[in-house]
């Protein structure tokens, strides 16, 4: 990071800015990159989902706005910005406005926690895994408040479902993560990533010892994201639009952005925990092979790591979309039953397996 900092100071000095300014601006830059990345990611994730769903259902998806429909979501976002924000007459106006913000703000933080490469790791505190779990739960509070404040029966049923679902799926996730923590002896996402590195590429990825944990986390995260087949809080055939029934305009857009950016963040979270995060799947890095051990290679490695990180995340995201195209929705009572009677015991079994592996590994 030091040479980047030096290069930045030099750049500012060239245009006669004081050095103090660089000191203030430099730490903010990564967050600006992140915010920009989030916006672009959400816009194109929505488009990607619509396109993939289209091709899976014998359609072409959006293909009118921009080159092959690339600008479709941009146009949609612009439309939502221009729309009137309607507040229902019986609604709690303060909470109704606050709820989308409560849902949206943690998302930015969640994006900051993830290690995108060895350097771009903004909030690398010793226990940021727990911080992540806490923040990933926060959007549900926004959903709950929004549904409650709407003063609509459909919204209330939707938000109660959301909270019941979030509570019961938080536990299997937490128990499965304990297995990972045991395996890596760390609560830091970067450390967890590095614990999976080996010269054999995927050989030490945690999906191999904690396969059950992966299945449990994968299912629970889909449920936590309120995505099909667990999209009960917004089941359009039963509850019209669930918690967001009364929302319109930018407030609705905030819920929408939250949903999709959490989808990316959680997919990335799965990658960090089970697929070696930003580590190359081939052991060595391509830039090191081509450029040797030079400065160019050292910089390129970071980009390569980000590339692998994003590639793995997109594979998980594609699985999410594929599942949405395949399955019908679960019933609300069976949803909770699945969590408490199947996933929770499985995650505890997974914890024991992980401990056993760790103990055998330690003894050897």
């Amino acid at each position, binding site marked *: 990071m030091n040479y980047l900092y030096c290069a930045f100071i030099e750049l500012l000095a060239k245009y006669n800015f004081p050095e103090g300014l660089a000191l203030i601006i430099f730490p903010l830059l990564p967050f600006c990159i992140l915010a920009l990345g989030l916006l672009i990611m959400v816009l194109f994730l929505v488009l990607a989902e619509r396109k993939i769903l289209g091709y899976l*259902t*014998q*359609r072409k998806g959006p293909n009118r706005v921009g080159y092959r429909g690339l600008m479709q979501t941009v146009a949609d976002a612009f439309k939502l910005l221009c729309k009137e924000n309607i507040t229902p007459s019986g609604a709690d106006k303060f909470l109704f406005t606050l709820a989308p913000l409560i849902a949206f703000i943690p998302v930015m933080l969640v994006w900051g926690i993830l290690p995108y490469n060895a350097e771009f790791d903004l909030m690398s505190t010793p226990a940021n895994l727990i911080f992540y779990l806490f923040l990933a739960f926060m959007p549900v509070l926004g959903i709950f408040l929004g549904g409650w404040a709407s003063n609509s*029966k459909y919204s209330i049923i939707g938000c*109660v479902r959301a909270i019941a679902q979030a509570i019961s799926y938080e536990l299997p996730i937490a128990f499965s993560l304990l297995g990972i923590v045991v395996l890596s002896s760390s609560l830091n996402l970067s450390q967890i990533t590095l614990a999976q590195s080996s010269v054999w590429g995927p050989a030490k990825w945690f999906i191999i010892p904690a396969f059950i944990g992966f299945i449990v986390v994968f299912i629970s995260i889909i449920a936590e994201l309120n995505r099909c087949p667990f999209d009960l809080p917004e089941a359009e055939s*039963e509850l019209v639009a669930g918690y967001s029934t009364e929302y319109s305009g930018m407030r609705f857009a905030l819920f929408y952005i939250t949903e999709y950016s959490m989808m990316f963040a959680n997919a990335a979270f799965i990658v960090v925990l089970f697929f070696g995060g930003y580590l190359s799947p081939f052991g060595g890095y391509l830039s090191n092979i081509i450029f040797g051990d030079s400065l160019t290679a050292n910089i390129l490695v970071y980009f390569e790591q980000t590339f692998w990180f994003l590639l793995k995340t997109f594979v998980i995201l594609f699985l999410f979309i594929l599942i949405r195209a395949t399955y*019908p*929705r679960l019933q609300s009572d069976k949803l909770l039953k699945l969590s408490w009677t199947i996933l929770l015991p499985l995650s505890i079994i997974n914890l024991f397996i992980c401990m056993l592996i760790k103990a055998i590994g330690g003894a050897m």
Partner: protein
Amino acid sequence: MSRMKLNLGPQHPSTHGVLRLILDVDGEKILGCEQVIGYLHRGMEKMAEGMTYLQYLPTVDRIDYLSGFFNSYAYVTAVEKLLKLTIPERASIIRVLLMELNRIASHLLWLGTYLLDLGAVSPFFYTFRERELILNYFEKISGQRMMYNYFVFGGVRHDIEYVNEIMPIVKTIVEKLDDYEKLLTDNPIFISRTKNTGVLDREEALAYSITGPNLRASNSHLDFRSQSEIYKKFEFKIAKAEAGDCFARYKVRLEEIRESSKIIYQAVDILLSSGGEYNTGLNPVNLNIEAGEAFADVETPRGLTTCCIKSDGSGTPYRVKWRTGSFYAVQILPKLLTGNMISDIMAIYGSLDVMLPEVDR
């Protein structure tokens, strides 16, 4: 959440029209249900009293716009009974062929929308893709995709054309049906949502005058096709299931598509190998109908449809009465829904294949 009244409809994404359900819910559990119909009432029966027999003919397709041929058939046959007209052999085979094609199209639409109600998006597009083949064929022969107005008193409007195209269409559909089964029949989520939900036993179904696939899924073999004169020439089995739940209704409808395809194969064979008149050549404008009463019934995709006409000898019907299957399916809703969860409403309601224009007429 304490006890509350939840108003579902008449504008709701998945009531397939304008049904209103006033639900008495405790949390997610349904304690009571009251159904309100009539939002799509067009006065189909009263309308007939101000029209000549011919003028009323195009409107009957609109009673149930997903199975227009069946309504046409019931009306036309009733009028033919009043006229004491026997229709040519070829015309009745054409009618059977088109009605069975229409049954397949209707069941495909049901399958797609039912899965959409359950939250699966893709099957909707797949079934509509196949249904499109049938509708395109209907458009070729009658000029219309849904409101055909193809049956006339004494036969059909034109001799049937492009008969060779039917076989490939039906073959494709039956092949794709296996794909749907792969996607759905063993799908654990689909099974958990449909098995043992909305169980309708045989006695109750008969007491409520439920007919059609809904009744046959409840361990009954009552199918009015087996008693119908025009189906005598064809060999087919009556699809039947025993459980009476949503899954049984799904199985019965899929089985019916397969059986209909068999009837279609036989009908196409007859049509290709023999000729004959397709119409009696009756002038439909000045019908000389004596005073009297006649009724005709037909097994539609949604149960028994009966058209009863009373004539007073003038040019217009004195009274026309329709009996449609969906009307009775709506009546049983409170019984099936009470005690279930909110997420079961659409699974149960969708599985009954209620068509609201047919309920309200």
